[in-house]
């Protein structure tokens, strides 16, 4: 028997002229390249013409094309909002991640935007509702978060966070346009701190940072390394993202969310202390983060560059002499290298010892936390959305891939053993109410996440 579905209506949207505010930043330039690639006329807006020049060079580098900027227009805020926003179909805000700055900007935009124009913020987790508070109804009905992951041309994951006043037909249209015209991998999220990807991802990253205080940086990055289903080890990822950005994200969640794992968002004190001393990760190469590259100039042997690793307990750095080799980790890497991912995870689940136990607790914690963000009152409505954003926004194995490879029953038993909340999805799958295997996103190959 087939059920006659109500056709879902879509509001027609035009996306010809896009105005990018803050076009000189990484996200602004990345978004401008994305819109130009989809055939839009793009106006770049920055504080001065020098910054416009910089933005254009960045955009050319991203697209690997000189021609991409040919049709682009550059403006500064001094040109006045009426001029900047004339004929805009989409006003895309990508200025610094500061709530008050964005609010002030949107107040100005509200007074000058064409009535049918869409307004979007690239914010990675600030309140969409809060940013539009006190603004006109017309603004609120056309306002959404469009969160891109950095760098947007390599990570296609995109979170669409509609303002509650936006009509569902417009949300659907926006999702479709982002998917089909701009090649994005889009999920719709609720307006909750850090949205879906960063909420789940930074929970794991910060938890690993907490554990590093006791177990060491190198051990944690080895235990939760690429072999567990990610492109990069967690603490190296925090160095790449920047400690300041990491702090802003976890602090925002810790202050504004109550959930079963909220303690995992408490920034470790050693990190807070080092941030104050200017250690921001790769963007401060001399001071470093969890790691840093140091060049020694010895008289005898000449220049010698080494990697140093942080000891969180003392705040000091020491030279990394060699990679840690942990037997069960090496065995799993070897299985992954041969494409035997299921056997790799079987080995992961049965390995003995405190280290294996620690690794399992973190990975199962990820599965539990990610799938618990699904459902009424949560961040997303469908578990496929969590899978999609972790795959395309973080390059991490989606949680349901881990469940499928470990086995449903075995996953549930392990979650119970580690006292981790068993997501309703898994209980429903156990009752046969949800089809297994769970992972069902086409064209995302799970094998690519498990490094050898």
């Amino acid at each position, binding site marked *: 028997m087939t059920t006659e579905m109500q056709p879902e209506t879509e509001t027609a949207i035009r996306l010809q002229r896009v105005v990018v505010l803050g076009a000189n930043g990484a996200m602004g330039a990345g978004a401008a*390249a994305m819109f*130009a*690639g989809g055939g839009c006329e793009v106006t770049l807006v920055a504080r001065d013409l020098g910054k416009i020049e910089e933005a254009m060079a960045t955009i*050319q580098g*991203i*697209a*690997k*094309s*000189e*021609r*991409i900027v*040919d049709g682009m227009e550059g403006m500064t805020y001094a040109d006045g909002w009426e001029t900047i926003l004339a004929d805009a179909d989409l006003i895309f805000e990508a200025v610094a991640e500061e709530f008050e700055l964005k609010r002030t900007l949107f107040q100005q935009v509200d007074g000058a935007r064409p009535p049918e124009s869409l307004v979007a913020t690239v914010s990675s987790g600030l309140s969409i509702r809060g940013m539009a508070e006190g603004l006109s109804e017309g603004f609120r009905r056309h306002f959404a978060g469009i969160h891109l992951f950095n760098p947007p*041309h*390599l990570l*296609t994951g995109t979170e669409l966070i509609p303002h509650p006043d936006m009509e569902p037909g417009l949300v659907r249209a926006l999702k479709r346009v982002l998917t*089909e015209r701009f*090649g994005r991998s889009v999920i719709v999220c609720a307006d909750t701190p850090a949205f879906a990807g960063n909420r789940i991802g930074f929970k794991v990253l910060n938890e690993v940072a907490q554990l590093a205080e006791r177990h060491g940086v190198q051990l944690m990055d080895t235990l939760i390394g*690429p072999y567990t289903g990610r492109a990069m080890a967690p603490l190296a990822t925090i160095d790449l993202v920047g400690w300041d950005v990491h702090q802003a994200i976890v602090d925002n969640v810790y202050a504004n969310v109550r959930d079963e794992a909220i303690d995992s968002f408490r920034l470790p004190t050693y990190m807070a202390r080092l941030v104050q001393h200017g250690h921001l990760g790769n963007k401060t190469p001399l001071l470093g983060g969890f790691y840093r590259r140091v060049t020694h100039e010895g008289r005898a042997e000449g220049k010698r560059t080494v990697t140093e690793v942080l000891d969180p307990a003392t705040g000091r750095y020491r030279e990394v002499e060699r990679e840690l080799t942990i037997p069960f980790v090496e065995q799993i*890497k070897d299985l*992954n*290298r*041969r*494409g*035997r991912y299921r056997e790799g995870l079987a080995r992961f689940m049965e390995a003995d010892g405190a280290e294996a136990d620690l690794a399992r607790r973190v990975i199962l914690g990820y599965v539990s936390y990610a799938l618990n963000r699904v459902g009424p009152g949560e961040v997303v409505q469908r578990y496929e959305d969590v899978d999609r954003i972790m795959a395309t926004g973080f390059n991490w194995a989606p949680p349901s891939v881990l469940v499928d490879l470990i086995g449903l029953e075995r996953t549930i038993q392990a979650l119970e053993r580690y006292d981790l909340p068993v997501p309703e999805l898994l209980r429903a799958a156990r009752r046969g109410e949800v089809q297994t295997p769970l992972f069902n996103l*086409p*064209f995302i*190959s799970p*094998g*690519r996440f*498990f*490094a*050898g």
Partner: protein
Amino acid sequence: MAEPVYVLGGYQTDFARNWQKENKHICAMVNEVVIGALEATAVEPKEVEVGHVGNFAAELYTMQGHLGAFLLEAHPDFRGMPTARHEAACASGSIAILAAMAEIEAGRYELAMVVGIEQMKTVDSARGGDFLGTAAWYEREAKGISYPFPKLFGRLGDEYDRRFGLKDEHLARISAINYANAKKNPLAQTRTWYMSEEHARSADRFNQVIGGRIKVSDCSQVTDGAACIFLASRRYAERYARRRNLDLTRIPQILGWGHRTAPIMLDEKFAESRDNPYVLPHTRQAILDAFRRARIAEVWQLDAIETHDCFTTSEYMAIDHFGLTPPGQSWQAIEEGVIELDGELPINPSGGLIGCGHPVGCTGVRQVLDAYRQVTETAGGYQVAGARKVATLNIGGSGTTSVSFVVGYPD
């Protein structure tokens, strides 16, 4: 008449992946593609009787030969299955298909697995370019030359220019169309890359000249990738259709094939074709052979073509060699939009080697899989509406080994 050979479908890996970065041995790619194909087709592994692998140069790129044996690593039920690996440069995948077809036609086996595979991102582009030079006569045409193949295919363009005239803007259009189609293909290597016709026309720091008239935008990609298809006899296809509740007449067949080899040296090819209306007459003959066997009188009976655009010049050649235009007039089909996705006879809806990617030994198998997807209306965003017959052209070397298939349903 030979036994018909049915195509049951298959699987392609994501051509954007870099398997060296994932620290994978080439057998991981074999495992993923074979398991993917088994899942996609619901073929029982124990029923697969023979396995053929198309691969160009795994010994050079990965220090691993004997790839047929790695099929057994993919599933325990494959123990004892006869396997072999086939090589004819960039046409290796098609040669593996021809071998599997011959066995089915001869009645030796009912169900064959064909894998095309290449891992290429293990070396830098200069070294990879040198490896590819072994598809030409290495000592005479490639040794000591950086990027020999772009130069050889640049000369194909020059030969067209000399005989008929050739404008680079038409080559730029070919590039832009392939990239645009690839954006609709979720497994294409370049699906997230920026490309425009203006960029393809421009020669600048981001679109450098590689050799002669060939710029970066005229080239196919260096790609890690594999494709796997299952080919079956009528008897197995009938059983398969019954079991899966399918209509046998909706399972596509390889309706025709052509396979010709020209002298390996490009100069000799040009000398040989001096008085021929076609620049590469053996390639033309491979296409005509496929048409004849498929009972196709003219190219317009096809609904789409997946051709070997290793460079824009080779697609330019394919347009007149397939007969879309008189010899030397390929530009007409480009200007009139004939070859575009919504045109009269789309070429490379998948994005081809330029857009989808070119894992050398995989390409012939990927093309037949894409032809299968078109005629079974499962090509998603790059579907050509109502496609019933799709041809492929796979070329090894500088037009040396040419293989063409017609995939679809008999009239």
